[in-house]
Structure formats: structure tokens, C-alpha cells
């Protein structure tokens, strides 16, 4: 994947830290994490469960308050920024969640779900204008006006995730923050949603922060990758470098454990790893 020209970062995190627990037993879920994303770039954050990747995202978008560190949007620190900048941040940074079965309100129609952001940010002049914009983004994600009055329950997992992406795109974001957006979907549907995300990203020039545990997917999708372990960034850099020449032991062990869907290659690799273990 060719790397986009690195411009001024649109989103930047500096020294984010977040602890949980009581005074006696505190866990640093996120420990001094910094990264930046340029417009048009896709950053993957990978790690095992408990590595702090989701908490990092939540701190960035403001769903979680960081104990220390700061988030910069367009070069301006959010804390202490004026209202207009904060409002712009909330509009231009949109999120797609993991589970489309719980992230869509079951009592709202598709039109209400996708149009809600337009109301909040006062982006629609009239009901007609609002509906037109909702239909426009629905068509962008491969749905159409016939779904406007339907409720989430009548859609499959893949379609729900399309609705969630449409909701994020409706307000014209510049950054998309995705937390495991395809891991709850069926294998044959995952590729549809991955391709849709890529297409939207390219068409709209979005910056994307993408959290996933599936390293093969991150390699496929991202320009840069950041590997986290127990709250700490152990390795980061362009995807090609990290995947082909991992430096940190943790990254190496993660990569070695990914199954490859090719019997001959996978067996050869396992045999080599076993031989290495024996000689060690």
C-alpha cells in the first residue's frame, strides 16, 4: 500500500495516560501513548485484549477522560480550545463501533439514526434537505432510500455496519475512528465492509484510526501500525517495515502466531518454529 504524502497531522495524541482501579491496585491501561495521523492516512492500532488499544481510542475521542497527556486537532490542543474548535472536533471526528447489534438504537429508524448528527450540528436547513443528505450517504454505502423507515432489527450484521458507517459519514467528517469495525461480522461479509471503508477513505480523503486484533487485516488496510502491549506502545512505523522486519519480541511473537490460510506455507512455518524452539 502506497503511503500518502505526510502532511501536517490532523489528529495527534501526546503522552496519553489513563489508569483504572482503586488507590491500592491501579492498572495503567494506557501509558504515555503518542501518535499522529495525517489527512488521508490510515493508522492501525494492534494488540491483544487488555493491551489498551480501545481505551486509547476512547481517550482520543473524549469518551474517556485521560489522566495525563493531550489531544491536538489540526494542531490545536482540545483542552482549553474555544467552543467552536471543540464543536468542529466532535463533527469532524466520527466513530464506528465494533458491534452493530448494540451500537444502533433499536427504536430509531434508519433515517433518524443517520440523520441525528445533522440535527445536532444544525447542518440541515429543512426536513427535505436532511432526508436528501441521509439518502446521499446511504447510497454511498450501498443502501438506498427504501431503507429509510426501517428499524435496525430488520438488517443483517453487514448492513447494520453500513448504516453505522453512513451515520459517521453524514456530517462530513475528516477523521474516522474505528474500533474493530468488522470483527463481529461473518467472514464473507467482512471483506465487503473493509472494501467499503477503504473506498470511502480514498473517495473522501479521510484520515482513519483503526483498532483491530486481526493483524492480517491491519496489514491489508493500514499505512502505519502501532503495536501495544499492556498499555505501552512497543513498536510503531510504516506497516511494511513492522510486518516484514519486526524489531520488538512481542511483535515477532504476535506475527508468528497468525495462521496463514495456506496449508503448505502454514505447516512449513510451524515446523520451522518448532525446530527453532527445540534448538533454543
Amino acid at each position, binding site marked *: 500500500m502506497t503511503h500518502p504524502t505526510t502532511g501536517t497531522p490532523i489528529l495527534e495524541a501526546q503522552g496519553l495516560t489513563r489508569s483504572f482501579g482503586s488507590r491500592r491496585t491501579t492498572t495503567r491501561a494506557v501509558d504515555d501513548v503518542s501518535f499522529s495521523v495525517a489527512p488521508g492516512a490510515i493508522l492501525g492500532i494492534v494488540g491483544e485484549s487488555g493491551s489498551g488499544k480501545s481505551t486509547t481510542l476512547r481517550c482520543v475521542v473524549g469518551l474517556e477522560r485521560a489522566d495525563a497527556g493531550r489531544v491536538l486537532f489540526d494542531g490545536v490542543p482540545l483542552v482549553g480550545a474555544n467552543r467552536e474548535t471543540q464543536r468542529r472536533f466532535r463533527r469532524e471526528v466520527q466513530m464506528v463501533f465494533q458491534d452493530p447489534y448494540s451500537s444502533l438504537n433499536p427504536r430509531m429508524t434508519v433515517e433518524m439514526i443517520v440523520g441525528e448528527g445533522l440535527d445536532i450540528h444544525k447542518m440541515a436547513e429543512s426536513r427535505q434537505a436532511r432526508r436528501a443528505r441521509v439518502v446521499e450517504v446511504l447510497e454511498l454505502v450501498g443502501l438506498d432510500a427504501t431503507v429509510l423507515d426501517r428499524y435496525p432489527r430488520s438488517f443483517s450484521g453487514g448492513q447494520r455496519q453500513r448504516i453505522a458507517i453512513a451515520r459517521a459519514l453524514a456530517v462530513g467528517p475528516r477523521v474516522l475512528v474505528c474500533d474493530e469495525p468488522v470483527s463481529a461480522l*461473518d467472514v*464473507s*461479509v467482512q*471483506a465487503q465492509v*473493509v472494501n467499503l471503508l477503504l473506498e470511502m477513505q480514498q473517495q473522501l480523503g479521510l484520515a482513519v484510526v483503526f483498532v483491530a486484533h486481526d493483524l492480517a487485516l491491519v496489514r*491489508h488496510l493500514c499505512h502505519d501500525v502501532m503495536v501495544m502491549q499492556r498499555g505501552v506502545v512497543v513498536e510503531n512505523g510504516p506497516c511494511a517495515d513492522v510486518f516484514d522486519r519486526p524489531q520488538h519480541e512481542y511483535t515477532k511473537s504476535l506475527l508468528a502466531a497468525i*495462521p496463514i*490460510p*495456506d*496449508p503448505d506455507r502454514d505447516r512449513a512455518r510451524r515446523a520451522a518454529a518448532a525446530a527453532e524452539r527445540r534448538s533454543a
Partner: protein
Amino acid sequence: MKGPDIVSLNVEVPVPAPGEDLTPRPLLEVSGLTVSYPSATGPVEIVSGFDLTVARGERVALVGESGSGKSVTARALLRLDHRASVSGQVRLDGTDLLALDDREMRAQRGRRIGLMLQDPMTTLNPVRSIGSQVMESLRVHGVGKTEARKRAVETLDRLGIPDAERRMRAYPHEFSGGMRQRVCLAMAIVAHPDLLIADEPTTALDVRVQEQVLSLIDSLVTELGMGVVLITHDLGLVAGFADRVAVMYAGRGVECGPVGELYRSPRHPYTSGLLASVPRVDRDGALAPIAGSPAQPTSRPGGCAFHPRCARAEADCTEDRPDPRRIGTADVACHHPLVLAGEGNR
């Protein structure tokens, strides 16, 4: 090959016809398995005429998406659901499991067939110690307490639980996810079953732990000569583990064959579509998704259930349901399978 002494050893041994292959009778023979569940609108058929064989020491993967009927198949093999009506044949070492009464069936579970489920948090009882849960499948089959205890400790130790003797008294919440999954594996294999059915055993685990659990299962197969049915949606996992793969779609087997050939030259458009839609860490290139969503059990299309999503579908696919037939090394249920050059479409 026809000798009187062979027949006198075991009258059940069928006399091989000329040209018939002489491989011994498989450990598990499932044929025409059909499972339906009652619903408000009448019975819904989840699994329809499914066939599968597993030999001793063989690792067979059962691959499918949600709603394909793979987990229902696992539960039906053990007759775990009283609400399900199950028909067809399930022969374990020649015994038809579907013909047994409840008491006889209980003697099979745990001892002849072990089951390991996806989520250890719902499999394990939170208020009983690890030890008593691992010992249970020995105790119900009449093994004495001391002996059961000894074997439980041995099994936990064998599966890499440190300080197994002491950990017998621990409770599930004191274990990590990977350790809990090892306990579930211990419960499934402590009585040395002939067949292990593992339903998505590593889905809840991180990749590194996943690899450990799989290689444990792998070494047990080699050591104990168990047959294994690994149920999963993850094609990557299957490649390194299975000897043979059965792909299910909408309650039916669509393709079944040796793992190497199946990955190198998938015959069913669904199998090839699945393989093309998985990102691979070892190579780049665009993903080619399958259109649409998996068919739901309540609204399965007629003819070949895959036809609305299939690029190769023609008129006959919407009407006739294809029966499995042998193409190369695989059994494929498709009217228009992908064939190699010079192979011809019989």
C-alpha cells in the same frame, strides 16, 4: 482379499467389492443428518442431509458462517438438545448414536465423545472448583474418587497448567482466558474419548494463546489417536491444523476434501469466495468479497441455497438442489463447480 478367516474374526466386516477402497471403517460416520427445531411457524430445518466421516487420528475441520448449522450439528452428534428433532445416522465405531436410549447415550458422552465449547465463561460453573469439574466426566462413568483425582491432575499438568495439584482447588475466575480454555479442554479429554468435538475452541482467545491451545489439541491427537472435529469460521486456523475440511452453507455440506487440494483448488464457488475474502498477512492484494449475506435458516433460497450470492449461478441453480459428487479429491455439491483445465465437468 476375500479370506474366510477375516470373515470369522468379525462378521460385521463387509466383504470389499472389487475396486472398493480397503480403508478401515471410520470412527465417526454421519450420513443424512437432519436437525430441525420447533418455532412459532412450524419446524425449521437447520441442518439438512449432512454427511461427514472422521477416521481415528484424523483432524477434520467443519467450516461455516453464522446460521450454517455447524454448531447445531455438533450438539446433534451428542444429542444435547431435547427440543431438536434429529434424523439420519450417526455411527460412532459402528454404534448408531441416534438409536440409543438416554441412559446408553449418557455412557457415550464424555467417555466416547468429548465436547469443548467456545466460551469457557459459560462452559465452566463459577461456583465449583476446577478440580471437581474436570473430575466430573470420570466420576459419572464410575471412576473412583482417588483415581479420578489423579487423572484430573495428570491431564491438567499435561495441558500446561502450572502447579496443577494445587490449582485443582481454584475457581474459574482465578484463571486467565487461555487457562480456562485449557481447563475446558481437560474436561473434554480427561476420560480419553475416541472423538473430540471442538466448537470454536479458540475464538475468544488472542492469537498467541490460540496457537498454544491448537497445538495442544494437535499433540493429543497424535498421542491418543483421537479423531477431532474442529468447528470454526476461521479459514486461517484450518489450514495449519486439519487433514480434511468440510464446508457448510445453509445447513448442507457444499464441499469436503483434503486440506491441501481444497485450499489450492477450491471447487465450490462458496469455498473459493471465502478464501478470496480473507486478508492474508503474507501477501497484499485486494479482497474479493462475496456479495450479500449468509442465508438465514428461516429464509433459505430454493435450489442451491448459495445461488443468490453466486457469480456462477445459472437457471438450474435456482431450481435443482445439487447433490454432492466427486470432483478430483473432493465431494462437491454444485452444478457449475470450478474445474481445472483438462479435467472436464462430468
